């Protein structure tokens, strides 16, 4: 019964993955015959390619920012929206809304908002006297990566709020009641009950956010295409450009192998630090 699934999966997932590994040992422009170069692509990536190192750095910074802010924000909002009242349900529905939009739409909308000269964000900042913060968001290599990270947080926080609400609602209410009887402050309740009890959910949120942020190709492509001066390039956009505008397929494959390693490493680190076994047992 699993035959159709196995067939499609092997042919279009596992087989390409293996081929990818094979390509990464080759120099290939897509036209002439591929040439076996051993580990050359990897050593070049590691020792000679400053741009790629910068891009890996970008990606790690991007992931860290998105994971930290998105997790903190969604946990905060989830504690606010825990009870099922009309208002909280409405707010959850609103917060969740961006999740259903396509990332291209989100990218294009935010390009409009971020416009430095007439964009809504700067106009609003100036209107409330924060002229200092009216930046050239996407056009300045100092801010572009963070501006995209902010969009990513806007995009997916609502989804994480829902996951957290589902998780937090599992915490027995009498724990809080007992704490209140003991005179525990809101912060103490959070620290001693909510945080430890929500740890499994946090692990899920963090893992999912991490994977999402390594896949943020669409946002970057529709907002900055990696610019200015590669300041917002991520590993996936680099793979795409190396393959489809520079026609270095072998080299791009090597980059994607690096991506796999980085993702696995980050996931493993998270599992270690959060000490939680989620998903696969």
């Amino acid at each position, binding site marked *: 019964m699993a035959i159709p699934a196995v067939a499609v999966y092997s042919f279009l997932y596992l087989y390409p993955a293996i081929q990818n590994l094979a390509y990464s040992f080759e120099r290939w422009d897509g036209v002439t015959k591929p040439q076996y170069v051993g580990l050359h*692509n990897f050593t*070049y*990536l590691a020792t*000679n*390619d*400053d*741009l790629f190192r910068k891009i890996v750095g970008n990606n790690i910074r991007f992931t860290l920012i998105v994971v930290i802010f998105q997790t903190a924000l969604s946990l905060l909002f989830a504690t606010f929206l825990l009870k099922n009242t009309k208002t909280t349900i409405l707010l959850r529905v609103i917060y969740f809304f961006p999740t259903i939009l396509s990332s291209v739409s989100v990218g294009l909308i935010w*390009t409009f908002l*971020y*416009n*430095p*000269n*007439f964009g809504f964000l700067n*106009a*609003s900042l*100036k*209107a*409330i*006297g924060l002229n200092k913060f009216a930046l*050239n*968001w*996407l*056009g*300045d*290599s100092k801010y572009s990566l963070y501006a995209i990270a902010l969009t990513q947080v806007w995009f997916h926080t609502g989804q994480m709020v829902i996951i957290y609400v589902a998780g937090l609602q599992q915490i027995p209410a009498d724990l809080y009641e007992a704490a209140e009887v003991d005179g525990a402050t809101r912060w103490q309740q959070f620290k001693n009950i909510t945080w430890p009890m929500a740890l499994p959910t946090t692990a899920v949120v963090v893992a999912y956010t991490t994977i999402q942020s390594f896949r943020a190709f669409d946002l970057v492509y529709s907002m*900055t*295409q990696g*610019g*200015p*001066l*590669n300041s917002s390039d991520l590993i996936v956009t680099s793979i795409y*450009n*190396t393959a*489809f*505008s*520079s*026609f*270095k397929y072998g*080299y791009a494959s090597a980059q994607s192998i690096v991506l796999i390693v980085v993702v696995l490493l980050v996931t493993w680190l998270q599992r270690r630090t959060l000490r939680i076994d989620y998903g696969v047992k």
Partner: protein
Amino acid sequence: MKTKGRTSLSALRMGAVTAIAMALVATTITSTQAAATPKFGVACTTEGVSTGTSTTSLVCQKNSAGKLVWANVRLGQSTGKPVAALTAAAGTIEFHHFRPEDKAVFQTIIDRFQAANPGTHINQVIMNSGDYTNLAYARISANPKAAVFVTVRGGQFAQFYNGGLLKDLSAERFVKQNVIQSALTPGTVGDKVYGVPYQSLFNDPLYNAEMFAKNGWTVPTTWTQTLAFCKKVKAAGIIPFAWPAATRGNAGQILNSFLMNSAPDLATLTSRIAAIDTGKADLTSDWFTDIANKYKAMNDAGCFPPNVTGYTDVVAPADFAAGKAAIYPTGTFGMSTVTNLNPSMKGKIKLMSLITVDTKPLYEGITNNTFILSVNAKSSARDQNIARAFISFLATAPIAQLYAVGTSQHVSIINVDYSANIDLLNTSDIMGKKLLLAPRFLFNNVGTVRNPLEDALIAIGGGADVTKTLADSSKTIKQGLGA
């Protein structure tokens, strides 16, 4: 806090509303140009307007006394009086191209061709441009019925030529007498013509002629004048150059102008570009540093809007169309975008040359062509006859006019009347200038070389340090080429 926010936000809006109201008032002052019948030697009002691309065309120019009069236009010439279309044998051939957007216009033309040649049939075979690049050669070389087809300037044309697929058209009278000879270059190998470049683009800055006239501005013709112009226009509260630096594809159009006069001759320019493209030279060379410094000088002179690196090619034409910018430096293909945004801009857009030297410029403008029409050398004699007749039909003025107006682009055919499209008409005088085929496309390594190179120039145009940016980008390019 909130109320305060609202007031100042509405104040901001008020300002913008006033600006737009003023722009609207400005547009109601309609140009009187259209009403006056152009006559040789008679006074005219708007410099640069021309009546077309025929030998009898007139252009509004300053005479020796400094007055604007209709003068004979110095246009691209053919070598004689245009000839009528050839007659085609009966039969059916295929016409292969990559312009789905031109399908309807071509069909209209084909219908007329078939009506003029009973028993002859032409079927359009259309691929999108991406596929055409990859597959056209294989398909056409295996298909002698594809008697007439198009190729793209450069690599693809060379590929077809080397494959022996292009029939020599040098002897055809319609090639010599109907086509503007200077436009033939992309279809020429040695001294033989193997294809007719049909559609012409001009990647030169567009300017708002009405705004120039109202403010008494003249189009700068030297580098010093350009920088002075920027200071003057900026002081008047107008963006001098609406340069869409945030969008690489269109931001790179002005690079053509910077390149065209950067070397003593074309051969030197070509070899310098090739040297960078292959990694033999880098961006820190004197030649390229000089170009980069000019981007910086433009930024220093206030030529670009504030935060130009965040200025996209959605905003730039909008500012130009709303009368907030004097110049939109992209090309003729941007005209319809502008007139779609603001229909009252029709008839007010002109093309200028961006001259980056103070000496006599080598070139006065940039041209590019979208496709080259050729006859399949492997087709049967009868099919070749139909193909030749079809190209000769396309090369007659009325048909070329149909195509030009239908697609809002210029064509390389002589005596085409653009008066049905005032913007094509107003910009057609560029064909009389000394033009260079867009040199930006001489960079073959788009991903590894041209993109980082253009990114560096964008950053510098946005105020980044020249030396550091060029050094960093040179390193990126070098490492990219070595990978």
